[in-house]
């Protein structure tokens, strides 16, 4: 670990990828994440890596497919409309079991929407925007330090389980500046060899990496393998943070930058004598249902706050299973909720 340096969010994530041994980046400019693409265009050259600006996000994800299939640690970053265009390729990568890290700096939608921070792509990112039975591990950081750690973790999870992984960021995360401490870089040469990669059939039989089998029984077997993998990920890869939940009377659930905002709300509520707590899921898939369910036993209200119309809310309800009331407060279109207005929404729920 080195000293703390002041960095912008997009650059923090880019540098974390380099430190994780990522030497291949493809991308296409889109606001509010273009600084990450720009950063990688400079840095990859410095570290002897590959940077290529693709002709579209469709090409980007397929370049990732190619790079990953020959064994490279590969990454892209994009924002909502661009991530929509990548869905086809992500579905292919999921079934071909190709690792890769996607950073989605989510902005207001649908359609062209706007370029302000949003969490309105939760369904797309977490539930899968492409075709077929697949899941993607998804991590939602709420600080730049956490973004750095999760980006590095994302590469390890991607390689360990042979799956695409998503960092769910938003425009606020991308644009903010914070002091960050970077870990020492990993030498890409020290990463374990991928014994499935397409490296030329030298001294072995030819091998294939595909998402395809025309025989339904064989494809079903592939599908079941994927489901086994997702089960394992669900068991082993859940991450969350609990804030002031020990003595709480009401529980907030919020992820990413909203989780950060709600921490202020929790403190404000406590100043007013309301013992609030926060549950912040960090892995959105796998969603920490079990732990949230346990916490829901202690309260009457589990209030979800999102920069969306209520998408993670569905997972919260699945965890709470009617054991507590599950009100929702959300802002849309890139409007960032303030701690005060969230508190006001809670007070209304409490009838105060």
């Amino acid at each position, binding site marked *: 670990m080195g000293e703390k340096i002041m960095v912008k969010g997009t650059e923090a994530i880019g540098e974390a990828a380099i430190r994780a041994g990522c030497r291949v980046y493809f991308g296409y400019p889109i606001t509010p994440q273009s600084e990450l693409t720009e950063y990688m265009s400079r840095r990859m050259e410095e570290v002897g890596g590959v940077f290529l600006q693709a002709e579209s996000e469709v090409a980007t994800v397929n370049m990732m*497919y190619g*790079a990953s299939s020959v064994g490279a640690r590969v990454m892209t970053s994009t924002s909502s409309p661009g991530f929509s265009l990548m869905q086809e390729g992500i579905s292919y990568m999921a079934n071909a079991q190709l690792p890769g890290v996607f950073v989605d700096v989510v902005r207001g939608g649908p359609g062209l929407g706007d370029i302000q921070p949003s969490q309105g792509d939760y369904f797309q990112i977490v539930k899968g925007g492409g075709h077929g039975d697949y899941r993607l591990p998804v991590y939602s950081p709420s600080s730049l330090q956490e973004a750095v750690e999760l980006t590095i973790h994302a590469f390890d999870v991607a390689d360990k389980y042979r799956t695409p992984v998503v960092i769910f960021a938003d425009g606020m995360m991308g644009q903010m500046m914070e002091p960050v401490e970077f870990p020492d870089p990993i030498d890409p040469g020290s990463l374990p060899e991928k014994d499935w990669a397409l490296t030329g*059939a*030298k001294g072995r039989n*030819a091998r*294939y990496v595909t*998402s395809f089998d*025309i025989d339904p029984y064989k494809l079903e077997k592939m599908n079941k393998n994927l489901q086994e993998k997702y089960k394992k990920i669900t068991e082993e890869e859940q991450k969350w943070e609990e804030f002031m939940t020990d003595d709480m009377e009401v529980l907030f659930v919020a992820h990413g930058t909203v989780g950060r905002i709600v921490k202020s709300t929790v403190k404000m509520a406590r100043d007013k004598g309301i013992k609030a707590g926060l549950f912040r899921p960090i892995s959105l898939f796998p969603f920490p249902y079990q732990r949230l369910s346990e916490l829901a036993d202690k309260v009457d209200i589990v209030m979800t706050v999102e920069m969306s119309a209520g998408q993670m809310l569905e997972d919260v309800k699945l965890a709470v299973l009617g054991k507590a009331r599950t009100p929702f407060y959300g802002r849309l279109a890139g409007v960032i909720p303030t701690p005060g207005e969230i508190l006001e929404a809670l007070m209304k729920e409490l009838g105060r």
Partner: protein
Amino acid sequence: MEKVSQEAMVIAKMPESLSKKEFTYCPGCHHGIVHRLIAELIDEFSLREKTVLVAPVGCSVFAYEFFNVDGTVAPHGRALAVATGMKRSRPDLFIMTYQGDGDLAAIGTAETIHAANRGERVTTVFINNAVYGMTGGQMAPTTLLGMKTTTSPYGRRPEKEGYPIHVMEIMKELPGVAYAERVKVSRPQDVPKAKMAIKKAFYAQLLDIGFGIVEVLSTCPTNWGMDPVEAGRWLEENMVKEFPLGVYVDKVTEVMKEKGVK
């Protein structure tokens, strides 16, 4: 009688770069001939242990199984983006795409043009049979005017369905292209010529000159509703007129001469 070693008696054998798997192509289809040419060249260049083949979506979706080299299947139209990702990450590998007309010249037009224009050091064999084969004979971007398909039942009309697209003519305008030639394999004398063209497209990559592409005019007897002989004749009489054969870009021959490569 003179003793001849067994090896010396072999006058034709299966290329090592083809797998033992039986082709699934229809009688009279040209995929098989072109597969063999590619496999022979991979053998002749001793590239089998360095090759990764990107198969397309279409009848040749199984190509990766027919070749005895590492391989994958790209999403429809994306072969050249996949190949770009491979070659950029592992420049030491020999990367090939094998694509049909719908794949390369309709859904994948952007990927094709930009990979070519960037001069990606990859080699593409482009099968143009003027029709979507796998899906049952629908109109392709290269379907000829007047040609009836299952989605142009009145024949392709320029005012409704537009014109057949000419890929080699487009390649000519892209500075990243090192080799582009249109060939056919419908008559025996065409086959060695086609092989030479693909060889040059291999050299475009191997000598680090640029993008190499060979378009092979091919038959689809099944979807054309013809027998193999008729289909071959139809190709000669109609497709060659619309898609003139020949070398469209050649930056390879000169470099070969400079480097003393034969």
